[in-house]
């Protein structure tokens, strides 16, 4: 596992967190504890209804845990999200894609949204935006209208937007739903490239951590070093290799056809 040099301050620290939706008796999340360090590439695996989206919303500060604590880059989640220290790209893009703006304008939105129109963004901010566009390959269509992009290009643009805020951790929620095998391969290469570039350029204690949330082990095995299996609580695995259908069935208490690869080995060797 890269860049855990000494004892870097964790980018995500969840301690005994729980969450129960109002009006429900059973908790959605219970006694969740996990630590994600700078430079980690972690998969968060779980079937539908396992609490993945709830845990992500707690990490992003959209909701507060009913029990326990969550710290993001040493801050409360909401404060970290506002400062761009944690950024996410959601499965479903809710943006108004008919908007008459370019990809570059979209990527610059989070950084410059408080700047008056008569002020130009700083050189540092421009450099960060150019870097994020180059990292994701979105620089090739940076001046195209956002509405003219394909699904894969839009995903790159939105990942670039998240990276442009210089986050400590990037969360990608179900990034491979509806993506064909070639698209999945491109995605895995892009994640490798982003991870390698950000690890090489930054000091190890501030290397970018990436969390990939998925219900599909194949998506996680191709891109992550460590797997957190979520089923109301967390079961941690050092790699996807040991997650055979039998192990997954035990964790998730039911058939895992939708999660595990068809062949026990194939998920780990992309």
């Amino acid at each position, binding site marked *: 596992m890269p860049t855990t040099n000494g004892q870097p301050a964790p980018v995500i620290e969840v301690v005994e967190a729980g969450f129960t939706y109002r009006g429900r008796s059973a908790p959605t999340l219970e006694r969740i504890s996990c630590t994600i360090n700078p430079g980690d590439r972690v998969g968060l695996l779980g079937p539908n209804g396992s609490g993945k989206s709830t845990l992500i919303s707690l990490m*992003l500060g*959209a909701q507060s845990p009913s029990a326990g604590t969550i710290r993001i880059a040493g801050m409360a989640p909401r404060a970290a*999200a*506002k*400062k*761009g220290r944690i*950024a*996410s790209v*959601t499965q479903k*893009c*809710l*943006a*108004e894609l*008919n*908007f*008459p*703006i*370019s990809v570059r*304008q*979209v990527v610059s*939105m*989070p950084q*410059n*949204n*408080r*700047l*008056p*129109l*008569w002020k130009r963004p700083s050189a540092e901010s421009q450099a960060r935006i150019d870097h994020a566009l180059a990292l994701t390959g979105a620089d090739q269509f940076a001046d195209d*209208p956002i*509405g*003219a992009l394909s699904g894969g290009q839009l995903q790159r643009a939105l990942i670039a*937007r998240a990276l442009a*805020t210089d986050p400590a951790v990037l969360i990608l929620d179900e990034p491979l739903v509806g993506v064909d095998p070639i698209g999945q391969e491109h995605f895995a290469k892009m994640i490798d490239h982003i991870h390698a570039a950000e690890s090489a350029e930054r000091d190890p204690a501030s290397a970018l951590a990436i969390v990939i949330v998925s219900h599909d082990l194949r998506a996680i095995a191709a891109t992550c070093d460590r797997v957190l299996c979520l089923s109301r609580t967390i079961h941690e695995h050092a790699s996807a290799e040991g997650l055979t259908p039998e192990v997954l069935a035990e964790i998730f208490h039911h058939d895992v056809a939708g999660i595990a690869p068809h062949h026990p080995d194939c998920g780990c060797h992309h």
Partner: protein
Amino acid sequence: MHGSPATPLENADLTMAILTGVFIATQCALLSVLVVLKRMAFIGQGISHAALGGVGIAAVLGIMDGPWYFLIVGAVCVLAALLVGWMQDRKAIASDTAIGIVLVASMALGVTLLSIAEGAAEAAHDHAHAHESASGHEWEELLFGSLTDVGMFDAIVAGVLLLITLALALRFGRAILFWAFDERSACAFGAPTGAVQVGLMIALAATILASMKLVGVILATALLVLPGACALRLANQLPAVLTISIGTSLLALAVGLASAAAFTIPVGGAVVLALVVCYTLTWPLSRIKASGAGDPPNPPQRTST
């Protein structure tokens, strides 16, 4: 309100009407781009109908013009806008249902209070005034606008409103764009989305209020939809969209005012018909542009709910 749409130029201060029209057309054109992109056309309609409730309250208080009239009608519009926003945020009710309820409630309040005001005036033996204040012509002016009612005060209100809107747009343009493009992400990244939303609702209410006398309650919303809809069919870069929107709005105003003067027809109807003609023309124009430049225009905007 003493004019008749059948003879709209009698007593009309045309300079003030034109000046007010230019301010309102520019203001509406700027906002209409956001209204169309954010699918807020129905909200605009709800707010404009809420204005009728305000007119009713003002009538009961015996105020039919001047700063207090603006203040009362404006307050009701802003309250209706904030009420719709609040009902939507609570998610207990669908957005269009919330607007539908506020819309009919305000209209019903307006009709009831205007009728009470008329009754009170009759009871005071002021038959002539009572007859005039609620006559068919008065309603027509309220709903479709009139040149004869527009004076210097209206021009000043519209001018100040435009200046405030331009200043706010320049200061908060980037946050407004982020909110309009992707509200959820804007909120997650700490953009002031709540303030932008409330600000836009108030701007819509104020714009409808300022447009009401010239183009009327029913047609005020048309000015908040059609210029933006035209521009978004013809351009895909924001500066061009805003320029075309303002240009279309001013062109339709000029054609509408000239037609109203030439054919003695209500201004609101004339302006909106001119806008509809412009919008119809954008269809062949966008096709010619697409085939000429190989640059597809934006797809047709989905209708607002």
